[in-house]
């Protein structure tokens, strides 16, 4: 019976769309249908608030908030599914170019080389041979492919610590630290049983461990920042004002690096920390971004703090530019990434990884407010002013619609620099 109901709705809404009748947004709102395979309160609250109706994946939906897996199935050739103009979805088909740890590293390395070959000024290097502006990720190799390169690098600094991570896993799964080659060798023997061929295929990354993270109250933390991309070519991306710091529950002692095994000291993932003995349910180790800025500005000064956040912004822009040429620029797609960033003692930011589905589960009241506002702001940017998803839309939201997001890169606007007339028109729509 229920499916009958949605059938009629589908026909009705299709009819409306094909006629392209755009009433006032209030009358149209109720006809927007959504679909999701993630049972997240912060999502459904926002969909309901807009008066959208929930439908099944097989029905006609306007917006699909899908898990990475579902999205992959949908876009796969086998599914034969084609999105129509009034549909949009929350992932780009090959987002993994950015969100798989190995591919991200590959793309960033390639991006740097390309710029260097062009003789681009951002690709300059210091006397020590490090990139001045593009040194945004810790030195990383892909295993097993780059094993020899890694060994060579390791021999240069035999006392260094490295972190090994499966390329495609999350929530801290399979991550460990090493400071001896022998340990890596033992691990590689154990992890590839010959009778498990697909295991051999699973790649890992090995990154230089950031041994001197900035500590507050003696504890390590990383930053979670949210970045929304609505289009890759020309690139248009927004950074969310409110992120948070995720603290380890156990003190990080700079002088005592023996304890590489203790994940509660080294890995800041909430998924890891919540299993710890010292985990606190009330705040769950999350400190908001405003507090971090307050602390930094007070104790390190304004110019250093501003410089840090300026560098974070550029780190994000570079990481996106590094993949903008390889990502399928599907106009039905938008994506909100969870950036993991570690700040070191020198107040230099390092990109750790980019997540395609940052967790939408909330652990505290503040977390809930932040995440539901995040979704609200995302929807208000990706949905055109008339309230109906539309792939043909210019993707130029008004400043009001951006909420707590602000535009950090807008190549369309940059390109139009030459054409004054269009720029003025565009500015009109931006600043209206």
């Amino acid at each position, binding site marked *: 019976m229920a499916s009958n109901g949605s059938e009629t709705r589908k026909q009705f809404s299709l009819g409306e769309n094909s006629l392209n009748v755009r009433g006032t947004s209030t009358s149209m709102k109720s006809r927007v249908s959504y679909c999701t395979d993630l049972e997240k309160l912060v999502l459904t609250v926002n969909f309901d608030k807009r008066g959208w109706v929930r439908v099944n994946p097989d029905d006609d939906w306007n917006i699909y908030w899908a898990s990475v897996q579902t999205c992959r199935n949908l876009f796969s050739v086998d599914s034969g599914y084609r999105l129509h103009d009034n549909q949009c979805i929350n992932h780009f088909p090959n987002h993994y170019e950015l969100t798989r740890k190995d591919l991200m590293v590959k793309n960033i390395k390639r991006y740097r080389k390309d710029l260097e070959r062009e003789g681009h000024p951002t690709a300059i290097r210091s006397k020590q041979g490090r990139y001045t502006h593009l040194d945004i990720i810790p030195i990383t190799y892909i295993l097993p492919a780059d094993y020899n390169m890694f060994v060579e690098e390791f021999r240069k600094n035999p006392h260094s610590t490295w972190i090994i991570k499966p390329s495609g896993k999350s929530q801290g799964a399979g991550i460990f630290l090493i400071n001896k080659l022998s340990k890596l060798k033992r691990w590689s023997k154990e992890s590839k049983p010959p009778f498990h061929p697909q295991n051999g295929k699973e790649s890992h990354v090995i990154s230089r461990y950031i041994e001197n993270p900035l500590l*507050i*109250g*003696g*504890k390590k933390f990383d930053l979670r920042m949210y970045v929304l991309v609505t289009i890759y070519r020309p690139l248009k991306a927004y950074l969310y004002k409110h992120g948070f710091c995720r*603290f380890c529950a*156990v*003190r990080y002692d700079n002088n005592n690096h023996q304890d590489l095994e203790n994940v509660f000291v080294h890995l800041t993932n909430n998924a890891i920390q919540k299993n710890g003995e*010292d985990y*606190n349910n*009330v*705040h769950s*180790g*999350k*400190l*908001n971004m*405003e*507090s971090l800025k*307050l*602390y930094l*500005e*007070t*104790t390190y*000064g*304004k110019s250093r*703090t501003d410089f840090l956040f300026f560098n974070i912004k550029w780190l994000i822009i570079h990481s996106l530019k590094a993949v903008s040429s390889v990502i399928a620029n599907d106009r039905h797609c938008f994506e909100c990434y969870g950036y993991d960033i570690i700040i070191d003692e020198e107040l230099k930011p390092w990109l750790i990884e980019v997540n395609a589905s940052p967790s939408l589960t909330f652990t*505290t009241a*503040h977390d809930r407010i932040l995440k539901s506002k995040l979704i609200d702001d995302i929807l208000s940017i990706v949905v055109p002013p008339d309230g109906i998803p539309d792939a043909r839309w210019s993707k130029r939201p008004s400043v009001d619609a951006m909420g707590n997001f602000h535009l950090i890169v807008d190549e369309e606007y940059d390109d139009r620099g030459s054409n004054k007339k269009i720029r003025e028109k565009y500015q009109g729509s931006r600043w209206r």
Partner: protein
Amino acid sequence: MDELKIKSIHFTAEKFANEITSIDAYCKFYAELQKTVASKSVTLDDFKKCLLESLSSSGMETDLRNSVFHLMRSIHNSQDVCSYKDKEPLEYLKKAQMLWEKRIHKSLNSMSADINSLSLARFRLASDRDEILEKWKELSTYEIDLTQYRPVYAPKDFLQVLLWLRNPNFRSFNFKINDGTWEFTHLSLKVKSFAELKILYGEISRGEPLIGVHHEMPSQRAPYPSLEAERIALGEKVIAFNHAPAAQEYLKKGAPLCIRARIWTQLLGSTVTPEREEYFNRLKQRVLQYDLVVDKLIIKDVQLTASNDPSYFVFEDLLYQIMLCFYRDTDVLSIFHHICATPIRGVLRGKAPTTKNSVYYPPNGIIPFHGFTMYACPLCYLYKEPVAVYCTFKAFYMRYWFRMHEVSSSEQGILALCLLFARLLQRYEPVLWMHFKTNHIQPVRVVFKWLMRGFSGYLAVEQLLLLWDVILAYDSLEVISILAVAILSFRKDSLFQVNNQQDVEGVLADLSTIRVMPLIQMSLIRETIP
């Protein structure tokens, strides 16, 4: 007349010259002075001139001036007291304070008796000492059973005491309406009128541009893009000048984040010196040596407050250190010179009960109450080093917060702040006042904990620091009451919607979105009602 004046200045100078010999920095200063006198730059021919010159060029003059400033402030602290023989002139308040002390002492004693007849203080067991030493920087992992410990008292217990105060010389004409316990208006203490407050907070009430009023405030001076940039440039100059009174003057228009910590240090004279580091270290040794019942209370308090606070939890370990040391700091006892509270004395075990054989308990004389840690929490955002947090916390407490938990008639005391709150509310929000009164709602029951903790833990950290800027700049706590009234007035519409105590508390439960400076400025800019 002039002669009298000169005499009085002379007298004051003499008094200071005497007092100054007792301050910490005196020995060092004296030694430095002797060195300077003996140095080449001072010659016998023109002794006075070149001595003064080299004093000023070496920065010793500035140090001396700052010392005099801090000394004067601490004497001013007890000024209302000096003129009386008694520290508290009002007999009924003195008595109330005595009864209150008796009650909390009894409660402390009975708690330690309940917990396997523990003595209030003893030598720490070696094993315990080693554990604390090892975990000094991560005391959150120091595990002890605290289930039987509970805070000796909470703000609401203290409020109950204050609400029961009766002025024996005051008789209301209408017994029925004035049932006394409703608000503090029946107490005849002197508090400032609104006109006086406007004068006190001159820069604010004149509507001058202040830090924290709104974000992108432009500068009124030439080269600066914003007020903040202007204040940063000026602030750096003030800091370089190293003059405590200048710091105080500067703070009247608020400090940008990157300036605040240093200005506060300068103003409170809480610079970290090697001597103070050494002192802090000695306090730590005393923590290791003695095991006090208050240690558990204070650890429990950190756990109940900071450990669960979304803004302060990262500083939990730091706060244990600060608080444990603070409770060993006998310098703090000097506050009792100018308040009528008296610390408890405990008789040493096995000794005759004479004054000689007794010690203050706890060593700093203060019985911790629920939320005491909140006085220290915000300072963790200002300084990285524990000793720096400690010095400023101690100076702040000894100048202001000690008055928040004693019964006294001081204009800076908690009672006067409550009364000021009630008077301002009645005068400037009469309709709201009537609304409360007719519905038998006591706004002070919500507001009291804000006042007692100086809003710490209620406001967003940045906002709280702006409020404390105003306290320091004008050297007065009255702004706390002004803000409390302003908040009620700001939430007036919602308050009119509700008609019972519980719902009023609901409306006022979350202050995280309150912006302090606009509210304070708005209230002070208002015209006086004659």
